[in-house]
């Protein structure tokens, strides 16, 4: 481990050739949080290390979410039998390079990680009823080749537009490449009107890929139930509010909505879901 990196190891995991799955706790559809929580719950991940927050987060107080005070956490969990490491963290606000190297220090020196999978959500203007695709960006041609057998969209051409910045996932992929750790950034589209809520369909898309790739043998009946419930809830919203149905119909026909209509659809869906829960 590099000297001076703010890592706290509670116990050394017994891993020889593991895979690291990483999710950010603040992204669209709460995807990173949901997927990492799910893996830890289903596969009995044991917390074994953390990155200390003071260099990376503004610690001027706490945020309040769902009536609870929240504090930035950056934690590692090990599912030893499956050679799986899960890392979940709030995205750092400073010292990104040091933070990303801290993650990879733990991965490399304490977990013998051979591959890295980064979970990312991208907001789409598509409808929730459209089939989801899983997009990938990799940091080497070799890992791209190794993923060929999976149902992925992996031929994207992209350059950061002027005035914007690359994602933290791209930054991590690049730092991992510098350390010869093959990495995959997974991107699943989340309809804009579900971005502030949860999207079990998106979760399942990522989880199904990880399940197959890492041979995790997960039974997804619980996620399927969540998908059914959300679909029913959204169907009720469509039947109760003709304008919601109209907006979603138009999205299903690949038409775009105006900014005002987008805002109205988000508001209606969020209100409806909040009142139904």
């Amino acid at each position, binding site marked *: 481990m590099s000297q001076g990196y703010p890592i706290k190891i509670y116990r050394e995991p017994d891993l020889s050739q593991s895979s690291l799955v990483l999710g950010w706790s603040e992204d669209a559809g709460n995807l990173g949080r949901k997927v990492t929580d799910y893996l830890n719950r289903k596969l009995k991940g044991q917390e074994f290390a953390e990155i200390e927050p003071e260099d990376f987060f503004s610690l001027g107080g706490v945020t309040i979410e769902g009536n609870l005070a929240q504090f930035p956490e950056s934690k590692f969990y090990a599912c030893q039998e499956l050679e799986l490491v899960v890392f979940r963290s709030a995205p750092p606000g400073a010292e990104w390079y040091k933070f990303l190297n801290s993650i990879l220090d733990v991965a490399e020196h304490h977990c013998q990680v051979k591959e890295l999978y980064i979970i990312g959500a991208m907001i789409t203007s598509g409808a929730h009823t459209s089939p989801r695709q899983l997009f*990938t960006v*990799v940091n080497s*041609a070799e890992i*791209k080749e190794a993923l060929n057998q999976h149902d992925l969209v992996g*031929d994207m*051409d992209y*350059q950061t537009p002027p005035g914007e*910045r*690359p994602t933290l996932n791209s930054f991590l*992929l690049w730092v991992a490449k510098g350390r010869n750790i093959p990495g995959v950034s997974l991107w699943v589209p989340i309809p804009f009107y579900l971005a502030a809520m949860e999207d079990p369909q998106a979760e399942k898309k990522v989880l199904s890929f990880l399940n197959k790739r890492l041979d995790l043998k997960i039974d997804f009946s619980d996620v399927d139930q969540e998908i059914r419930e959300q679909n029913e809830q959204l169907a009720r919203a469509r039947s109760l509010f003709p304008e919601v149905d109209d907006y979603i119909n138009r999205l299903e026909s690949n038409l775009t909505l105006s900014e005002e209509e987008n805002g109205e659809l988000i508001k209606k869906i969020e209100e409806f879901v909040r009142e139904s829960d």
Partner: protein
Amino acid sequence: MGIRLYQEPHLENPILVASWPGIGNIGIIAVDTLRGMLEAEEFGEIEPWDFFYPKRAVIHKGVLEYLELPDNKFYFKVIQGKELIFFVGEEQPTEGDRVYAEGKKAYHMAKLVLDVAEKFKCRRIYTSGAAVALTHHTMKPRVWAVPNSERLIQEIRGYENTVLTSDIEGRGEQRNITGLNGLLLGVAKKRGFEAICLMGEIPVYLQGLPLSYPKASKSVLEVLTRSLKIEVNLDKLDELDQRAQRRIEEFYQQIPLAIRGQLDRLRHVVYDKPAGPGPITEEEKKKIMDDVEKFFKKRGQGG
């Protein structure tokens, strides 16, 4: 994190000219334009990883091919018997939501730049930035010069179109030099280098806009090149200025007539002697500043 030198040019007592982006990009345009015109050769850089977030990713057929971070490069040129080192920083290393560099990272970067100055035995350092002033965009910007040593004051008094801060007392709003263009001056003093910061005037009503102000960069370069005793053709900056002036004029016409009327009075302000009274009284000046501030506050709130 540190310095990477690709080559070690043989230089004896060169002068270092350094700049980072700031208000109106006045300093960086001046320094980078001079560097480009002199075709200075790149010889090193400050490694960016610990200072910056990446600025561009290039993905080709699903493979992340390149991740670009802001450049912080050293160049050198020997011209007309003068040895020059340029340092051009593409961004200031900021922490949190701050606009300009401050704190540990900024200090560390200033120290690294001066490590190179020390290695090549630089005898003087120039930095450059902006001076926010009650002036009009149709007027020729003056240059405010801030040295870090008493013995440079007399020399500065001999520069044309240049004022010391004591000469502008009560006129400018600026009492400090924010960011690295200023910090380098202080760290240079601490390490025993003589240094001067040359700041081109930018009208107060342009300071918050994402516009460059090459007219002031030209004023800075006129002073800098005379001080360095080198001759260069600055026509390139006139072309840049013409383009910038068109955008500035478009913006200016959007300012409400009442405020524009006040600002128009600045077209006629001529400072015939450094500390002499101007044609606008202190009271009028305050009113202009208040009106401009109110306008921008309202504009910022979407009003």
